[in-house]
Every structure is written in structure tokens, then in C-alpha cells.
């Protein structure tokens, strides 16, 4: 019996199979664990450890390094407001303060109804639509207090469910192609490529 639901478990195993080494699937698997549980649970991290051939401590130690992974429960919607340089110059701090009042929670905290977590983010690479705001890592183009209020209303009413999935769901497009072959086969191809190149180079050296 796994902690991951069967569909998540299947996707997890597919992810592991994409990499030459299992541990490389660590970040994608942690995103997946977050997709199922909304944050990283002990059981979720234990399963990631099993899948990546690491220990739960190594998984936690890795996860704790990255801002997108939450080791405690967060709201259904994680609202990130950027205040880095371009957004600072566009009033990002004021927008963050407005978000704090609208959502009724402090920065880094979750609203009483469990719907929203508010974060002050670093640069979101959307500096021409400043201040940049993301909800669950989707850009929402809410640069004014009025736009932010409307967004929050829409989120409460479930009117953005089509484009903003619950926190944790990062990539909704599943990989559907690829060389699903063992790394041994790829290694063999690579060896052949090397041999072919060596032959070409030898020929080139001879020619010169």
C-alpha cells in the first residue's frame, strides 16, 4: 500500500524512468507529492525517498532548500506578490500590503478559512507587468488593488478553477512521447556515436 494514489504513483514511476539515475527525479517527485497532498507530508517524502533510493532525511534536507516546497500545510491558493527591484519601482510593497488586508493574513501565513497563503516573492520574471503576482505559480496580471480584489473574489467563488488549479499542481501536461528505453540502450547508442566520431576524426587527421 503506497501513500501515493495509484495515478500519482504511476506518474512517479514514469518520472523516475526518464533519468539515468533515480535521484534525479527528486524535484519532479516532490512537486508530485505536493500535487497530491497540497504540501510535503512525512508519508509523501518517505515515498519519494523510496522511489529515489534516498533516505527520508535526505529528501527533507533537499526539499527544505527550495522555496516552492512547503513542509507545512498551506492554503488552497498561494498568492505571491513580487517586491523585487522592478516591482518595487511599480509599487509592489503597496500591493503586498493591500493583499495582506484583503486576504486577512500576514505575509508567510494562511487565512483563517484555509483558502489563501500570502507570500512576498523574489523576482517572478514578469517585470513588464509589474507588480507581478502569481497564484499557485500562474501569472494573474493583477497590478492594482482593484484587480487584486476582483481576483480574490473570483478565486473565492471558484471562477478561476479552469486556469488556476489547487496549490501543488504544477504541470498539467503529461509527457506522452520519448525514448522509453533503459539507459543501457541509450548508453549503447552513445558508445556507437563516440565510435563514429572517433572514426571521422581519425579520417580527418589522416586527410590533413
Amino acid at each position: 500500500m503506497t501513500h501515493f494514489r495509484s495515478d500519482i504513483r504511476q506518474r512517479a514511476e514514469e518520472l523516475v524512468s526518464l533519468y539515468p539515475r533515480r535521484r534525479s527525479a527528486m524535484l519532479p517527485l516532490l512537486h508530485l507529492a505536493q500535487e497530491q497532498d497540497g504540501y510535503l507530508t512525512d508519508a509523501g517524502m518517505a515515498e519519494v525517498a523510496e522511489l529515489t533510493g534516498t533516505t527520508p532525511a535526505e529528501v527533507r534536507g533537499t526539499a527544505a532548500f527550495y522555496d516552492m516546497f512547503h513542509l507545512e500545510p498551506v492554503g488552497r491558493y498561494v498568492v505571491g506578490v513580487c517586491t523585487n527591484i522592478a516591482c518595487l519601482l511599480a509599487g509592489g510593497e503597496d500591493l503586498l500590503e493591500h493583499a495582506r488586508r484583503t486576504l486577512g493574513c500576514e505575509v508567510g501565513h494562511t487565512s483563517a478559512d484555509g483558502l489563501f497563503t500570502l507570500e512576498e516573492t523574489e523576482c517572478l520574471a514578469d517585470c513588464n507587468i509589474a507588480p507581478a503576482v502569481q497564484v499557485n505559480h500562474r501569472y494573474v496580471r493583477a497590478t492594482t488593488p482593484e484587480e487584486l480584489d476582483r481576483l480574490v473574489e473570483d478565486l473565492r467563488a471558484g471562477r478561476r478553477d479552469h486556469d488556476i488549479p489547487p496549490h501543488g499542481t504544477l504541470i498539467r501536461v503529461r509527457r506522452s512521447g520519448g525514448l522509453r528505453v533503459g539507459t543501457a540502450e541509450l548508453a549503447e547508442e552513445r558508445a556507437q556515436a563516440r565510435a563514429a566520431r572517433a572514426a571521422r576524426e581519425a579520417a580527418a587527421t589522416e586527410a590533413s
Partner: protein
Amino acid sequence: MAVVDTPPIVTARRDLADSYTLARYLETGGYQGLRKALTLHPEAVAAEVDAASLLGRGGAGFPAGRKWSMLRKSPISYLVVNGDESEPATFKDHYLVERDPHQLVEGVVIAAYALQVTQAFIFLRGEFALGLERVQQAVNEAYEHGALGRNIFGSGFSVDLVVHPGAGAYICGEETALLEALEGKRGFPRIKPPYFPAVTGLYGEPTVVNNVETMSNLPWIVLNGGAAFAALGGGRSTGTRMFALSGRVNRPGVYEIEMVKNTFRDLIFDDRLGGGVPDGHELRAFIPGGVSAPWFGPEHLDMVLGQDEVGAAGSMLGSGSIVVMDDTTCVVRAAWRITKFFSRESCGQCTPCREGSGWVERILYRLEHGGGRTEDVDVLLDLCDNISPGLNWPPQQTTICVLGPSIPSSITSAISRFRDDFYAHVQHGSCPHE
């Protein structure tokens, strides 16, 4: 007079709403560069990139062709694309992965063929949820179309491409930290030497790491020839380049313009580009290449946008992101916010960076928010000198990677240009702009 009529290379599909779909990509010349590349010898493809003199678009500006040729002697195991765009005010790769993912995929396959690599990865910033979906979709379509996977377009060449999400860490833009993250570990930059992943990269094997914009240029270069690319621009700065303009300008955005042919004044003030500073305010300073770069002032406005020109003037074109500050901007607050960013993003391995960033951030905080002292200005400079001795550019390094030595840039720039602003903060007891 700004030169804006050069046909765009990487943003050629900017006016098409469905530019990210395979159908539109094929209608507009998509995958023709790859088809041509596959008819050439891999070395000939690499030679075109060499001839283009394409400088890497990630920030360091290392010639992509030379990066490849360093490797030609020993076989390369992996190709990794750096799409962890996190340098504050940089948003060009964000544009490319959302708007033209097939162009990126095509570039990756071309590079993989030139390097004879059978396994490639695109490492994308985790915050690019839409970009991750668009690129994954493009990868799926490329497999279906035969442009990726086994026996590409019947050429016999095969390569597998995996889209790998990051998880929120600026430091993973540093290529050795990125490789650690791709190995499933904390994003700690690796100790140098070896300096190049070309020697010891992913899983300790030779690896090429190139930026998203660099890769996106390849289809055009192969199709039109390296010489055509090198004919654009001037000096070592060839081709066009995407400049991300933000801050106090009327028309912030990504502008692809020919290298060297335009000045900072053109980019910031031309009506077809930045459109000037809002409401007739006066430009006080600007950052020429991401927040790691020392600031420029009005006297630099007539400098051309070229890598060597900006480098010779004591800063860098870096990631191609320009931030404009005007007379409404509190430069102390700007320096504080940038420093807070470095403090938050320091990975913590090296003492000068880990301890230094927090220390200078706290001093800047009290200058801005209350409690600043006259001697703080000198203390800041002294601390910066400890983080990067000499306070020169390029900075001297006391740390494993360049994040640490980048911390002083904004602080020393703000102090050397606007020292009186700092003293005004001390006298006022906090920010006088509030």
C-alpha cells in the same frame, strides 16, 4: 536614432497569438533548421555556430561555439539547457518558453546533433508553470512529429529530451548548482576547479550547459548561416539580442534589437522601444544587465548596447535586463531591496556571502526604516570590501560562485553616486521619501 528595423530572429513570431502551437510553428518555417542540420556533418553544424560568434545569452556571455569546441576532443554525455531565469528584472526566457517553445526544442535538437548527445534536459524555473506546460506540450508534439526521439526525420540520429522543473532557488541559475539540482540535491554550486561542466558535469560526465535564448537562436543560424548572424551587430557582439526593459519607463517589455547598433538612450527613450521616463521625470540611474551589475548614470546613456563596451565601462550587459530609476526612486530603498534578495538567495556555503549579505542588508534596512548612523556608509563599504576585496569590476572572488561578489554592486553603486542620499536618511531618521 534607434535601429529597430532589423528583422527579429528569436521573437519573429511575436505577433502571432498561437505562436506556441506546432501547426503555427510549421507554417512559419519551423523545424527547417533542424532538417538542414541533419543533412550536414555534426562538425559542420558546430562550425556554423562558431562562425556566428554567438555569445551565450545567460549572463556570462561566453561564446557558445567555443564552449562546444572545448568539448570536441572528448565525447559529451549530456546537454542541459539553463532555463532557470531568476536574475531580478530578467524576463526574456520567460517570453521564449511561453511564446515559442518549439523554437527552443528545435534549437536543443540541433545542438544535441552537433554535439552528438543522446540525452538532453531542459531545466526550467519552477515558477514558470505555463512555460513548463507549453514546453512539455511542444516536446510531446515534437516526438509525434518525428523531430525528437528515435531516428529524427529518418536521419538515424536519436535524442531524448526531458523537461525538468526547478523548485524556487535563484542559485540554480549558476550552472554547477543547476546540475546539483538536476541530480536531485540541494542547489549548492560546486567548488572550482574544474571550472567547466564540459570537464565534469552531470553525474561527473562531460556536459554542455547553454541558456534558453542561446538555444533559440540556433534554428535561424543553421538555416541562414553563421556568417549572416555575424554580419549583424558589431565587434564581438554579433546578432540580435533580447533586452528586458523595466522599472521607471513608459513601455517596459522585451525588445529584440540588433547588438551594438543602439544605445541605452535609444532603448530607454525611443518611442518604439522604452518610450522614456513617465511624466517627464528625470532618469537618475539605470542597471545595465541584471541586479548583479554595477549601476550606470545619465553619462552612460549614449553607450552602445554591446558586451565589450559595457564591460570596459565597469559593468556588464549580463542577462540583458535594464532597470530604470528616476527622481522618484529612493536609491537607498532600491539597494536595500536588491541586497535583501541576495541575502535570501545565498545558498549558505561560504561565509562572506552567507554572513555578509545579511549583515549589509540589516544596515541598509535601518538606514531606510529608521536608526541609521552616519558611520553606516563606511561600514557598508568596509563590509562590501570584505565580501569582494578591492571593490573592482569584475569583482574579486572570495566564494565558490559569483553570487557573493555580486552583493556589493548595488551598494557601492548607490553610495558612490548618491552618498548624500544616505546621509539624508541618517539626518531624517528614516527614508525622507516616505
